[in-house]
């Protein structure tokens, strides 16, 4: 019995350590990301609909996913985000990836259905002080509660979304 308990504690220890490292890395990589949402950020989707991230984030956390067609790491993260977009509010921002038609074609080819905004000049990313793809921001009630770059696992993103809800 005690052997199993010991193993359980050990496992828990590893998980806490891993989470701490992930948190530390997030913090270090994204120390430039502002804590509050940039003012009056109204975005237009590829479909032409206007979106207000701030308003959306008042009811539930919003995940903003910065990606690019020129980023070879992004195809490893995009399917996860796409999957999450079925149950959570997800906005994807295509960073300096060309014109609308090209991005639409790319999304179709890769079977991605998330709502996408074309940030052709990288201005939206600049608002958030983001230069790196892939980056995932979680925004809750006008505040950036979490920012992470690079490869992120599905449980990692889910954990961040839940944490964001808990901290309400």
């Amino acid at each position, binding site marked *: 019995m005690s052997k199993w308990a010991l193993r359980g504690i050990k496992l828990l220890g590893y998980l806490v350590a891993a989470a701490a490292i992930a948190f530390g890395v997030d913090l270090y990589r994204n120390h430039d990301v502002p804590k509050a949402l940039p003012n009056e950020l109204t975005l237009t989707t590829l479909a032409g609909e206007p979106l207000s991230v701030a308003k959306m984030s008042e009811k539930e956390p919003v995940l903003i996913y910065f990606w690019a067609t*020129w*980023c070879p790491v992004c195809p490893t993260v995009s399917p996860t985000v796409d999957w999450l977009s079925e149950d959570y509010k997800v906005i994807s921002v295509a960073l300096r990836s060309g014109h609308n*038609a090209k991005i639409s074609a*790319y999304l179709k080819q890769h079977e991605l259905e998330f709502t996408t905004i074309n940030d052709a000049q990288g201005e939206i990313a600049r608002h958030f002080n983001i*230069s790196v*793809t*892939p980056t995932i921001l979680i925004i809750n009630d006008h505040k950036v509660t979490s920012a992470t770059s690079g490869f992120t696992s599905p449980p990692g993103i889910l954990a961040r979304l839940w944490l964001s809800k808990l901290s309400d």
Partner: protein
Amino acid sequence: MKTNTTFGYLRWFSVWVSLLLSTLSWAQTAPTTGWLTSAEHDAVEVKLALTGEFNPTTRTLPALLSVQLKDDWKTYWRAPGEGGIPPRIDLASSKGIEQISWHWPTPSEYYVQSIRTAGYKHQVTFPLEIVVSEAAEMAQLDAIFTLSSCTNICVLTDFPLQLDIDLSQLTPDSEQSYAFARAMSQVPQPLNNAEITRASYSANNQQVSFELSRASGWSSPQVFIHSDAKQLDEVVFKLTQQDLSADKERLSVSFEASHWLELPELVNQKATITVRDGEFAAAYTAPLKADEVSVPNNADHTMTVWSALLAALLGGLILNIMPCVLPVLGIKVQSLIAHHGTSQRYVRIQFLATAMGVITTFLAMGALLGLLKLSGVNISWGMQFQNPWFIATLAVITFVFAINLFGLYSISLPQWLSQWAMKPQSGSLLGHFSQGVFATVLATPCTAPFLGTAVAFALGAPMYLLLLIFLALGVGMALPWLAIAAFPQTRRLLPKPGPWLKWVKPVFGALLLATSIWLLTLLAPHWQPSSSESTSAQTTTERSWQALSFKTIHQSVTQGKVVFVDVTADWCITCKANKLGVLKQEPVYSALAADDVVRMRGDWTVRNDYITDFLRAYDEYGVPYNRVYGPGAPEGIELPVILTSDAVMRAIEDARHE
């Protein structure tokens, strides 16, 4: 004739004067931006520097765009593959500049998960040619250089490039010229010793296929594709297949072409294949021919998965009769015969344990290769045999066991080793399991010839397929063990124990000894580099190359001798190709050995102003450079950059006869 020589002397004089002048004035520097950094992204630094030269006929300014990347950061080649974007310069508000043409050094392949990209790590220097507008005296570069860089994250960074260029004030900077030549030498050329033997495009599966032949054989080639055709600008090519023929001379590669909108017509378009293989790097262009043969290609692809799995299963099974493994299986069977009384259940368990050992080891190897692949290491099966320590260790192990089987116990094995390897019948399940591990490790040297196709397929396949193929390999090899485990009765079919049993061990010992010797022969190539170096040292002493000297050239020519000048550098791949492919081959080798031929070499491996000036005297800025002087050609005959034996022989003959 006489006037000819007088003219020659005059030429010499002018060369001397220009030499003297250029040495006096080389302190001048050419415009440069210095190292530029970005506050957003401190892992990259870039620098643009002009060489200070200007070609008035083409109106071009040679320049160097250097990129320094920290740690694991990479940037991309002209056609970086799926994802990835090439570095580019937007002229923005530049004045007096028409365009900038890029030269791309040979890239390396990198993998992110299973996505293949072509690019550069640590540092890369792009030689550029800045084309200045007609009649412009001054030019102003005010451009944006956009550089993409990735590790497990990607960044697009803009660097402003600003230079004021006054054409009348430009002075060549010998250091930058040297750096430019050096960077140009990294740009792949169509070297002679390989060629494209087939280039085709199949519209029904959008596959572009090539066959590249190289007489000296390919070892671990990396292949890249791009097209200069404007219509194909946005076509993305994805490597789908890469195979080597059994004799290693023919390399076939296929790429899947795709376009974000609609794929343009590829037939009759020219495509360029860049291939890197160790120190060899070259590029070949060929038009794509329509390929109608491979209509059922889609079925073919699924077929290859099944046939690869089947090949893996059979290959694994065949491994059992290889001299590396047979003794292990044999000893196991022998133990079965010797201990007739063992219960069926125990036989079953012990063989199952061994089979698991085999399968687990194969899966572990597959997982290891997969991890290496994910981490972006360039993997190939048999790369472990490029490691002399691995081979040596295996050779020692097989030798020790062979000795052991001969009954020469003078070499005492560590107790635990002989316990699990030789007497597992008295050991635990773990003992039987590790016996399987041991058999598999021993089998690896024998895998190369049999598993080539399956493993090559696995390495190019996604992770799950890779593991599946290694699983098939393991199951294949474990089949006999599994068979005995499933039907322990089969052991009754084995011969009765008798006096012949005492011969089993020595026979298997001999097999193991043979394996050990074979492994030692595999080690031979690892000794060769040092020995070939010493032979090349010998050849250089026996046929000495003099240091480059204008004075000696002049003196030798007046004595009626032929002077062959070879300006070369260790970092120059074309130079190496010339040396191995032409200079060291007959008939050139003998022709250069003739009594009236003086061999002269300028080694530009490190910067040398004398050699730079020699090149400059002939309006040349890079190596390889070859020139032949003689009574028939006192001012010298320039040879093509890529030497051919004909050109060298003809030049020597022409130079010899006045």
